[in-house]
């Protein structure tokens, strides 16, 4: 899809996925969902957007089918925090099951902040789930990266992501 005035460049693979997460796997999404998450990030700016990633695990890959944007419940600090209410999770999970899907993870944006997980992200993360982070700088979408919590909860590991439209692979840098 052509985007007026913006040449899209997706981050390249910079290192192989670590073995520190027992259930590490690749995450596959279509450009359509990527762009929907970008639109959510733009619309929410300068606040953080958040939502649920629905799809299926297939032979060691997580394949995204749809996203469900959710209300950021952190009204006290929406520019650098997000919270998904448990009742929204329950509704999303019910919707997923009705469609034969699972909750694969969550996305959120970092307004004017790199697409890297913070300590706060890590402290509140669950294993197995994919955490997609979109950097939005001055209202424009930048990098999007995917992360998995290590089994010892000590760190976030970059998760390899594939755009299923053309097979482009990319993975976040684990450092700064």
């Amino acid at each position, binding site marked *: 899809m052509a985007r007026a005035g913006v040449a899209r460049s997706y981050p390249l693979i910079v290192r192989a996925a670590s073995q520190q997460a027992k*259930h590490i796997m690749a995450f596959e999404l279509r450009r359509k969902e990527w762009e929907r998450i970008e639109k959510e990030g733009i619309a929410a700016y*300068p606040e*953080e957007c958040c939502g649920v990633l629905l799809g299926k*695990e297939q032979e060691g890959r997580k394949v995204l089918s749809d996203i469900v944007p959710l209300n950021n419940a*952190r009204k006290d*600090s929406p*520019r*650098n*925090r*997000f*919270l*998904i209410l*448990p*009742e929204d*999770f*329950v509704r999303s*999970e019910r919707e997923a*099951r009705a469609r034969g899907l*699972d*909750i*694969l993870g*969550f996305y*959120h944006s*970092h*307004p*004017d*902040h790199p697409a890297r*997980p*913070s*300590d*706060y*992200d890590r402290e*509140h*993360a*669950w*294993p*197995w*789930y994919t*955490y997609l982070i979109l950097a939005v*700088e*001055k209202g424009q979408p930048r990098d999007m990266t995917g992360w998995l919590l290590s089994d010892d909860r000590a760190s976030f590991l970059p998760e390899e992501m594939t755009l299923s439209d053309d097979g482009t692979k990319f993975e976040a840098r684990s450092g700064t």
Partner: protein
Amino acid sequence: MSVKVIIPAPLRQYTEKNDSVLVDGQTVDEVLHNLTERYGDLRKHLYSDEGKLRSFVNIYRNDEDIRYLDKGSTAVKESDVLSIVPSIAGGATAMADGLSLLTKD
């Protein structure tokens, strides 16, 4: 009497990959006790060392958080569905606001 317990994806590795499990019990505590008896590795993910439900774990009876019902003593009946619901939160560091100021034109 058994009720259905919905298992979120990260915890299915401890429930033989089952996404829901039928468990006996008259109260939420009884159901969770029987569930963690059957799947021992699940216990440390639901309860702290002191035996309390972890703060980032929520239990719902149908559409209601048991913290606002009778907590662990909340009664369950056969048609009820219990969900183990993870708290999901995060966000950029506190530096985000500062960076935002620095990058303004």
